[in-house]
């Protein structure tokens, strides 16, 4: 039985993320093949049995999230995932298991950046929030995947890792080392059967049902959940900012496309232009305060995203009308429709950023 593949190696994103999950103690995965998520499932199917875990080839995405729900309820570190369409099928379960306060890591290997709304607003019913992490490259994906399991358990809340085709299929050097994280409290909320017959048995449920108590108090239960989400929002926003202090133009981007945005910003800086770069690492909580701080009163913001305009809503909310916000992104797709498009090109991105720069004096 091979142990964990540690140390530096060359790995495609799917392989690296699966390995990072195992390093974090993930012992359960269930999934259904769908491009570009399929390789992640293949990796888990191959590696989990080797470390004493379980991977189930679920009959559909709905069952995949159900199985992960059951595994997570026993206190095991569990994950599931898909691409946008599969995540769409999972939405009822995702919103309900959030209310059941179950830790679960979800992978969206998305077909581009058009799932931003699905990830951050959630496509399920009712009030709930997921922490959403958006790695820019394989190295960050390894770190954020491990961090996802920790955050999920710390807050007892699902955490979604937003990947994409490019991330899944790009091989790069990654450091597969376990993160050093503070200890977590014991999993008293988990069920294992042991309290049966004691009069204190548990019911892991999304309604706040209690043993010996007829009826529920949904308002109290949902408000408590809302308070938890407010606390997550106050504590967990993360971002990366570069050269924003004197920037006339702030370019905002996330995920794989952010790599191209950062490159364009650095190039323009080298040419003497005062541009800055802001990358949300958490799409929820969106680092609104940080963005507002990074943005001078006389600056402009340009949002680069590969969709019809989704993150730009959060950018506009963050700057609250103080500065102009323009889109330099848009829909961009090749004929395969798996999320790669002409926008993923350094020259293309450079010209989009340059096009909204004021002419040099």
């Amino acid at each position, binding site marked *: 039985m091979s142990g964990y593949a540690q140390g530096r190696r060359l790995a495609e994103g799917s392989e690296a993320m699966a390995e990072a999950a195992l390093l974090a103690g993930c012992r359960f995965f269930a999934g259904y093949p769908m491009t570009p998520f399929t390789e992640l499932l293949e990796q888990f199917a191959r590696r989990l049995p080797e470390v004493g875990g379980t991977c189930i080839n679920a*009959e559909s995405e709905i069952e995949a999230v*159900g*199985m992960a729900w059951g595994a997570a*309820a*026993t206190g095991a570190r569990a994950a599931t995932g898909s691409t946008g369409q599969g995540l769409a099928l999972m939405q009822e379960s995702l919103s309900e298991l959030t209310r059941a306060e179950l830790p679960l890591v979800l992978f969206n290997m998305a077909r581009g950046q058009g799932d931003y709304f699905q990830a951050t607003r959630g496509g399920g019913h009712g009030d709930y929030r997921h922490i959403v992490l958006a790695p820019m490259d394989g190295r960050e994906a390894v770190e954020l995947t491990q961090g996802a399991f920790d955050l999920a358990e710390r807050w007892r809340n699902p955490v979604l890792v937003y990947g994409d085709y490019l991330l899944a299929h790009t091989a790069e050097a990654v450091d597969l080392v376990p993160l050093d994280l503070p200890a977590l409290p014991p999993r008293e909320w988990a*069920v294992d059967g042991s309290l049966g*017959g004691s009069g204190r048995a548990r019911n*892991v449920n999304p309604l706040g049902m209690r*043993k010996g108590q*007829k009826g529920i108090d949904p308002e109290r239960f949902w408000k408590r959940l809302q308070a938890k989400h407010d606390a997550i929002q106050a504590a967990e926003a993360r971002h990366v900012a570069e050269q924003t202090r004197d920037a006339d133009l702030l370019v905002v981007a996330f995920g794989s496309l952010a790599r191209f945005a950062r490159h364009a910003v650095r190039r323009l800086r080298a040419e003497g232009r005062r541009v800055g770069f802001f990358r949300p690492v958490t799409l929820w909580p969106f680092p609104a305060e940080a963005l507002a701080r990074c943005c001078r009163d006389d600056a402009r913001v340009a949002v680069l995203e590969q969709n019809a305009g989704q993150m730009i809503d959060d950018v506009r909310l963050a700057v609250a009308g103080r500065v102009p916000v323009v889109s330099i992104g848009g829909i961009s797709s090749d004929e395969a429709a798996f999320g790669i498009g002409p926008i993923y090109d350094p020259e293309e991105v450079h010209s989009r950023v340059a096009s909204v720069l004021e002419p040099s004096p």
Partner: protein
Amino acid sequence: MSRPVIRSDRPPRAPARKTGTFLPALQLGADHDLCPGCGEPLALRSLLEAIDDLGAAERTIGVVGIGCYTALTPLIDLDLIQALHGRAPSVATGAKRMLPDALLFTLQGDGDMLNEGLQEVIHTAARGEAITCVLLNNGVFGETGGHMTAATVLGQRTKNTLAGRDAAQHGYPIRIADMLAGLEGSAYVARASVHDAAGVARTKRMLRKAFETQLARKGFSFVEILTMCPTGWFVPTADGPGYLDEVLQPVYPMGELKASE
């Protein structure tokens, strides 16, 4: 001679042995708002007694679907996971894979298991998951007020088949036990009923056998329990057992459909 009326509002005074308690050992109370004449509490009693007889309470996890029976969960002194409508088998699968020595059962109505969740129970059986799925079959979606499910029999009147289920309009019922018995992953498949005392006793025996099959790691086990729903059937409570016997039993006969050695 006509029989005298005996006081029954307290235990008897003459020396006697108690042979039956109000509640099974694993039930926390009796206060529930299910309809008069509902068969589901009878199935619950059989289930809890079977688990208690096996001494398995401290290793049991129940995964409960959504239906009238969901309201019984506060009374169950077992570790439970509440699942969504139709989704208990997948949840039970995930839990069982992480805790292979636990006794896992699902508790689902016919609307839950055969409409929303048909795919889940079939695949769970096909995979031979060592869990026990328990179907409470009253031929209606009880909780929404009594509507047609995949188990509603031809001619049965429900709120959305007021003229009686008609094959031309609504198709035919699905006999899930027969389908599951045909899958190699199934090790024990049985059908029980709680319309009379003998049926209740047989229900408990079948549940016990199903749990034993699971604990012996032989594969998937399944017990369908026909229950009365006088409200959904538009009959007086006292006519519930007769309706079950005359209308549902012919389509869903009792017995063991599959039992592995």
